[in-house]
């Protein structure tokens, strides 16, 4: 018995998992610093406080969305509806309500509700996450356009705009909000039973079920978190842009999946960390900014993004095989 046990491939223990995570984070950080250094050498306009602040403010909405996307990916899911949630929440709450706190309260509840529908379809109706969220994405799009008759109007309250564009002691409010949420979600994921169960479910749904975890509820909660994150991101994004638009957040579904994958989340489930995906979001937004700063054609952003998605996925695949 003992002989078989020692011969069997040893399962990586918690410490080696931590060490791998740490190395992946350092790799991402190193990559970010390299592209920043190269750009600084190429253009004096990149490493200025104003530009760095721009990058951070622009990265904030993607940061919220990618945290939610990662949590869904951890439970073997995928959320294609995030961009549609962003726009729908932003359009419905800002065109009907004038008070900033109420806009946020209603917006977050809307996001949670839509996330719960996604989660219900996936966990209880056994619809593939891809199709469930594809369908909600299209339905929400229809509801939103029908509601606004194609052209949303209304003005945004002053406080609301300040939340998205203003700063406290030189630090953008959006960034402070993201930092708070990121620390909270990191704590939930790494230090609570709920977080452990999410990862356990991603590793093996059967094992999670055996331990007595409410597996269906776990999946619903993951989608609810994603819905809430998308709602926050949508509100910050309209606040930043200043105009309510039916296509607010267009492309964020794919950008958030890209950032999650680059940040180390695996579609097979069970893997992902908040710092990893946030660094990845920062890398993506930095690259978009760099393309503009250096004066390259803006379409190059797409080519870079696509290449990075495949390269990152290939690197992680190699690492997990070794």
């Amino acid at each position, binding site marked *: 018995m003992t002989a078989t046990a020692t011969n069997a491939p040893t399962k990586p223990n918690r410490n080696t998992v931590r060490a791998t995570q740490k190395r992946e984070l350092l790799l991402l950080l190193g990559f970010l610093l390299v592209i920043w250094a190269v750009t600084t050498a190429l253009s004096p306009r990149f490493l200025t406080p104003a530009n760095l602040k721009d990058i951070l403010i622009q990265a904030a909405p993607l940061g919220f969305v990618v945290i939610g996307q990662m949590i869904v990916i951890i439970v073997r899911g995928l959320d294609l509806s995030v961009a549609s949630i962003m726009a729908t929440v932003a359009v419905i709450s800002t065109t009907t309500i004038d008070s900033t706190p109420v806009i946020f309260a209603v917006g977050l509840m809307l996001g949670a509700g839509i996330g719960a529908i996604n989660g219900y379809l996936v966990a209880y109706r056994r619809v593939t996450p891809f199709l469930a969220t594809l369908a909600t994405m299209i339905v929400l799009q229809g509801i939103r356009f029908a509601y606004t008759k194609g052209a949303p109007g209304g003005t945004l309250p002053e406080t609301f705009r300040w939340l998205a564009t203003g700063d406290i002691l030189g630090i953008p409010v959006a960034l402070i909000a993201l930092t708070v949420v990121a620390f909270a979600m990191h704590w939930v994921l790494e230090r609570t039973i709920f977080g452990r169960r999410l990862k356990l479910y991603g590793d093996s749904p059967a094992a999670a079920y055996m331990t007595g975890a409410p597996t269906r509820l776990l999946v619903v909660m993951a989608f609810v978190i994603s819905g809430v994150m998308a709602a926050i991101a949508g509100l910050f994004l309209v606040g930043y842009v200043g105009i309510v638009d039916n296509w607010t957040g267009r492309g964020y579904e794919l950008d958030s999946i890209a950032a999650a994958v680059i940040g180390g989340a695996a579609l097979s489930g069970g893997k992902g960390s908040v710092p990893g995906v946030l660094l990845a979001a920062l890398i993506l937004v930095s690259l978009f900014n760099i393309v503009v700063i250096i004066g390259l054609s803006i379409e190059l952003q797409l080519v870079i993004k*696509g290449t990075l998605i*495949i390269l990152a996925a290939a690197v992680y695949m190699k690492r997990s095989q070794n």
Partner: protein
Amino acid sequence: MSMLVRATRAQPVHLVVVALIAAVFVFGMTVSDRFATPLNLANVQDQMVALAIVALAQTVVILSGGIDLSFAGALSFLCVVFASLAGDTTGTLLLAMAVVAGAGILIGVINGGITAYVGIHPLITTLGTSTILAGVALLLTRQPTGSVPLFFEDFTYGRLGVLPYGMIFVIALYLLIGFMLWRTTFGTRIFAVGDNEAAAAVSGLPVKQTKIAIYALSGLLCAVAAMYMTGRFSVGDPRAGVGFDLRSITPVIVGGTLLAGGKGGVLGTALAVVLLALLANVLNFMNVSSFYQWIAEGVIIIAAVSFFAGKGKS
């Protein structure tokens, strides 16, 4: 009759879709006198040709347990390339066709190669290639560009009675791919890989090569769709493919092919393409704005998936 059922691999679920088509058709006739006219029905067919071709490609890929999201970028890129090369003579047209078909196959080989040999999930692989190709298409040109020979444009608008040439071509393609799926070794391998990849590998099937061939076929069909679309537009639009990645999936799912792979077929997809096109047409006659049509599309996906979810278990 029973031979026909066997040959087409007809299933009870197909009957449901046929019944829905009939219902939509009858309903359409009550909505407008112009609905059941040859002109309108030919128009409906014109509108489904491109979607029918990429949905056919998507069906084969999904049957093998994969997914191909590269159509958005690939169609845009191939349309631009085709229009830039097609010129105005038969010679240049044939050259453009060969180049675009080759490029489509190459895109597929890259998708399949990365998926099979590096082991990246096809969703991520094809999302990556699609993004790159969308970027390249726009780097080549921001405005619609190029042209096609006039006779080719005429051909894509041509009709045999109520049947557009494009539709006849699509029917032939579906028969061909259906034959390939049910009657050839390659087809059997596609189902084997989709049903249980590990089992297929253990029983000695060349899983990786099969995957590359599947995505190559998908890329080739995408190239064919690009030629047709360019002919219809008579220019190469660098945004021609926008939305086709997700739109190509709806008919496959509504037609009863399971996203998990291994179960389904081309007949379901064909019927679903017809159903969705007729429904959109009828809703247009009713002056239902596209906003509500989106809601309908989403609900149809959920309804279809919930319907088939129970079937997959048994």
